[in-house]
């Protein structure tokens, strides 16, 4: 099929009519603050740890043309898809003419949201004096919506993945639509948590709409609109100035999936990045054909990935708005992994997307290696657990991403944190895990020698061990177990991710990507997350840095002797 060109950002919709820069700045801060109020309301009223601890959601405000006004620090990958969610949710109810004050829509068709069905969008329009002026939107992960399993790595079509809500009003003119509400609760293994989270998201969008309308009222619609156009233009300049300084050219980076979830065999893919003046084009059209298993990334997430990769690099560390996306073009080919067609399964849509970010950085390293880091562990290292509590008979579920070693970059060793695609996300404290779930967490520690060697070394990988205190099911979704991260400029890769299950009888199984693994009481799940890639030749690493790493136990004598033979070690003298 022919390729399709997508513009990642919308242009001006009002003529240039500048407002004073102080008003623009006040409006910008007020909108960010409105988004933050939304986030706070959601986090503080949510029922499931994936929302209040892991922050597996995005909240944002849009203008009436569905251009991104502001977002609160949350999940970047969701953020870049929310505009598509708003557009499709409104289409689902028959268009803007069917929108009324006080309506709230839910929507989760994966080809419109970009995600698996568990990521539900909740959208509320904002009316100022009877006129539609914008939207508040939240996309959050729901723990279970009656897919074949709460979390799946082996679906073969999208209908196995969960119940679909094709854009329906859950609240109509301020009143809960009871039949829809009951259908939602009937389609979940953990209805109580779902009810609590749905309520929290309704509180969240209402808070956002109220805060957005306050900003509009304070400045008047005309000044508000002019300030917003100014804000977008500023964002666009920031990104264009960045790319104007990068050498023009066509650069290629690559990723590789361990398998597609239902068939053996690695699946490599390439992404081409074309820098042309102050614009950048990300071309996914050479991607492999769409897969039989769920590693297909619907177009909204392919565009979101591109937005995240570029604005992280070129956005001056600030929260992006619609303007930041205007310099970005995305090319896809229908029928491929980055532009699958329904009903291809897409439960693991996020895993190719996560790797794509680093493939884009690898491509840009060919233009200028010092502008990007080497590769991280390359995965969000997700584990999802569920079961029925022994004492109470209550169903429970929990899930989290886990930190990986980050790639080194010129002048700096990598750290240990969650993957850049989840840069605001936190994983739960062990004490919170143990107070909610039937677990004994036996360790959470950095692992010697897991870091990629280099003049600047990669970040450390982490070992986790979860002992099940009651019978539990687990779905593991961990990529890059067969290919460790790459280094840059002579730097070497770090250790790859791994998942091991230790049975009570002493047997050990490797299960990095598997659904509904039975874990009877007493079994142990070990997650070993990858170390970051190094930057620059290991032979150039400063001796004092090698010795300090040795003393801190980040590396062993063997590692130091193998990778840094230039450094005399204390024990070598004896």
């Amino acid at each position, binding site marked *: 099929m022919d390729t399709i060109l997508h513009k990642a950002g919308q242009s001006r919709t009002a003529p240039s009519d500048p407002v004073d820069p102080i008003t623009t700045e006040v409006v910008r801060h007020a909108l960010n603050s409105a988004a933050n109020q939304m986030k706070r309301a959601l986090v503080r009223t949510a029922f499931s740890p994936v929302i209040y601890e892991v922050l597996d959601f995005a909240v944002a405000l849009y203008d009436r043309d569905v251009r991104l006004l502001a977002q609160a620090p949350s999940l970047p990958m969701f953020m870049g898809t929310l505009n598509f969610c708003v557009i499709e949710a409104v289409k689902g109810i028959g268009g803007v003419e069917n929108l009324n004050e006080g309506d709230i829509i839910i929507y989760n068709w994966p080809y419109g949201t970009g995600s698996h069905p568990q990521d539900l969008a909740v959208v509320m329009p904002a009316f100022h004096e009877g006129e539609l002026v914008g939207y508040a939107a939240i996309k959050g992960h729901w723990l279970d919506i009656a897919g074949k399993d709460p979390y799946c790595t082996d679906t073969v079509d999208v209908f196995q993945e969960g119940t679909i809500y094709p854009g329906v009003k859950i609240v109509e003119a301020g009143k809960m639509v009871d039949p829809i509400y009951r259908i939602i609760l009937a389609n979940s293994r953990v209805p109580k948590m779902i009810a609590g989270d749905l309520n929290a998201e309704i509180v969240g969008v209402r808070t956002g709409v109220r805060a957005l309308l306050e900003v509009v009222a304070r400045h008047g619609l005309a000044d508000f609109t002019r300030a917003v156009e100014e804000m977008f233009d500023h964002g666009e300049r920031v990104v264009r100035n960045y790319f104007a300084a990068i050498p023009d050219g066509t650069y290629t980076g690559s990723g590789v999936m361990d398998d597609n979830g239902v068939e053996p065999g690695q699946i490599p893919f390439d992404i081409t990045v074309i820098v042309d003046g102050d614009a950048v084009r990300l071309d996914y059209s050479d991607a492999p054909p769409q897969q039989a298993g769920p590693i297909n990334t619907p177009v909204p997430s392919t565009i979101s990935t591109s937005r995240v990769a570029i604005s992280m690099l070129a956005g001056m560390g600030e929260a992006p708005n619609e303007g930041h996306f205007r310099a970005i073009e995305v090319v896809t080919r229908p029928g491929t992994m980055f532009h699958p067609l329904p009903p291809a399964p897409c439960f693991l849509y996020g895993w190719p997307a996560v790797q794509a970010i680093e493939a884009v950085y690898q491509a840009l390293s060919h233009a200028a290696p010092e502008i*990007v880091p080497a590769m991280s562990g390359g995965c969000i290292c997700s584990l999802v657990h569920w079961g029925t509590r022994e004492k109470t008979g209550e169903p429970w579920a929990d899930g989290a991403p886990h930190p990986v070693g980050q790639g080194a970059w010129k002048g700096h060793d990598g*750290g240990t944190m969650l993957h850049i695609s989840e840069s605001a996300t936190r994983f739960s404290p*062990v*004490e919170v895990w143990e107070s909610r779930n039937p677990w004994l967490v036996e360790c959470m520690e*950095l692992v010697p020698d897991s870091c990629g060697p280099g003049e600047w070394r990669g970040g450390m990988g982490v070992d986790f061990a979860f002992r099940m205190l009651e019978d539990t099911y687990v779905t593991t979704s961990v990529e890059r177990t067969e290919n460790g991260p790459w280094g840059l400029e002579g730097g070497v890769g770090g250790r790859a991710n791994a998942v091991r299950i230790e049975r009570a009888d002493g047997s050990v199984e490797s299960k990095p990507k598997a659904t509904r693994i039975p874990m009877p009481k007493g079994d142990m799940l070990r997650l070993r997350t990858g170390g970051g890639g190094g930057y620059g030749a290991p032979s150039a690493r400063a001796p004092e840095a090698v010795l300090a790493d040795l003393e801190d136990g980040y590396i062993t004598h063997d590692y130091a002797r193998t990778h840094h033979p230039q450094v005399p070690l204390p024990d070598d003298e004896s």
Partner: protein
Amino acid sequence: MATRIGVDIGGTFTDLIYYNETTGETVEGKVPTVPHAPEEGVIHAVQAHVPQHVIADAAYFLHGTTVGLNALLERRGAEVGLLATQGFRDVLEIRRGDRAEMYNLFWQQPPALVPRRRRLEVPGRVLGDGSVHAPVDEAATRDAIRALMAFKVDAIAVALINAWANPDHELLVERLIREEGFEGGISLSHRISGEYREYERTSTTVIDAFVRGRMSNYLRRLETRLRDLGFTGTALITRSGSGSMSFAEAEDRPFETIMSGPVGGAHGASEFARSLGIKALITADVGGTSFDTALILGGEPQVLYEGSIDGMPVQTTWVDVRSIGAGGGSLAHVDRGGLMRVGPQSAGAVPGPACYGKGGTQPALTDAAAYLGMLGPGQLASGITLDIAASTSALATVAKALGQDVETVATGVMRIAAAAMGGAMREVTVEQGLDPRGMTLLPFGGAGPLMACLLADDLGMTRIVMPPFAGNFSAWGLLGADRVQSSARTLVTDLDAQGLTRAQALLDTLLAELTDRGARPDKASPSARLDLRYKGQEHALSVDLPLDGTRIATDVDTILTTFAREYDKTFGGTLDEQVETVAVRATYTEALAKRQVRVPEPSPAPAEPASIDAHSFALGKRLPFAIIPRATIAGPTDGPCIVTETTSTLYVDAGWTIRPGTQGELILDRKEL
């Protein structure tokens, strides 16, 4: 015995104020800070400004200091060893996996306060319900303790998993540490915080161990010196979460004083807002080195239950004060890109701005102000006469590098500093969704009144209130810091009759612990809060728990009604779910007597009013500014003018009118230009 002495140490000046409860007399003074021995500056200030009989008669010495904070920021604290549960030595470094700047691909986690080599393990495990899964392996623990002693650590922090639920293992480890002969400080996590979340609790415990020695030595030296001067009263230091504690308590719980410095100003502002009935007020405390700003709503500062310093969480109550490195001493320089920057480097107390004539050659913000005439003719409280020629030649070096004239550079320094300070003020207002334009600006600190009109214009504010003793206002605020002890502990249980009984039992325990820590129930009044949530949620709302003596004077239904009202107010709706308790918070407050500021009668105006050619930012040019001694202002006076008083100088731009208020304050209103 009715005098209180307050001393606040800033980066540049040490400010003093004392207040006589009987006569209402208030006296202020200022001396340079002694950075290498801050207590010397305190003693200099007391010796220079407080008569011997007043020292001997004083009931309280109230103190605010950044000693602990600076030790942390500059990483000049104890060598700390950390004992953690086996398998969890890296909690401090792994943190929660997030980035403080989420859009910054190159964000780096701050280095852990304890390097990995000094983080060792204790085999043994407590579970979340408080039960013991595995006993402590004493032999292995002794090995770890000896290894830490071989590193010659000054202090040992012990932070074991689930110690909040059962402290027995930490207490055992403490005993083993002492048996091994370690004589340094020991910080146990369950004593620091009774709340769960191991990273946050470990971070707080390590910070406590890190600053403990330095704080304790400092407080002991200071107290000895005060006693030598004849002081016989009680010495108190302000807490990060407001109120004050005795020096002895502060030695035991130093982490509670980390943000002691900026709290004095927030206290004073709150007291002032209450007495004048100001609903919404933003503070602008401009010292020599830093700028602090806080929001005061309804006469109360904003209190958080967790703070953070330099990316490290601190699990304790916390007055929300934002600080940036910009003040009168901030130096102007040209960066590599050819742009002029102001701060964060500061001329500090030594050498100080060029115009102090103490050897400074780089231009500071004070030099720009002096050059522009904003400080009037230049007699400062600390006895310094401004050397305008020195300012001019310092500014000229930067002007030459930029190819600009000195006037442009000087006004640029002021504008850049005002924009940076304005950004911090937006954080506490606009970014909380609050419009500063209807609020009152309260400028204080040596350079606050100098910056006030620029800051108000930056945020579109039209009302400024300059408090009495503005130059020493933080010290004045200290004098009103009630003595407070507080403690909190996690208690997860349904809120029913039985739950309330458990809450009462825990409250009794907490109040008894506070008494052990030095609270005086005969003089102090207890108060309590209950953190509540709907069962299934994680986050809680804190509601006031009315007491009759130390007994909970309310019932389950009334608490539920209060909670539902607060929840509805905060989140716009309530749920049909069981409510559970999460934590009990107990406080003893020993109130100091209320103060009355004695307002002196205005003095007669000088026969020949002086004036100076100064820069007007409103009009963008120099024009004559009248120089008016503050004591002579009896009625409304139009700007432009420069108002002088002992410890600060007020710059009133064209377009502003000043008038005296009822409590010794000056009120500035913006007219339409």
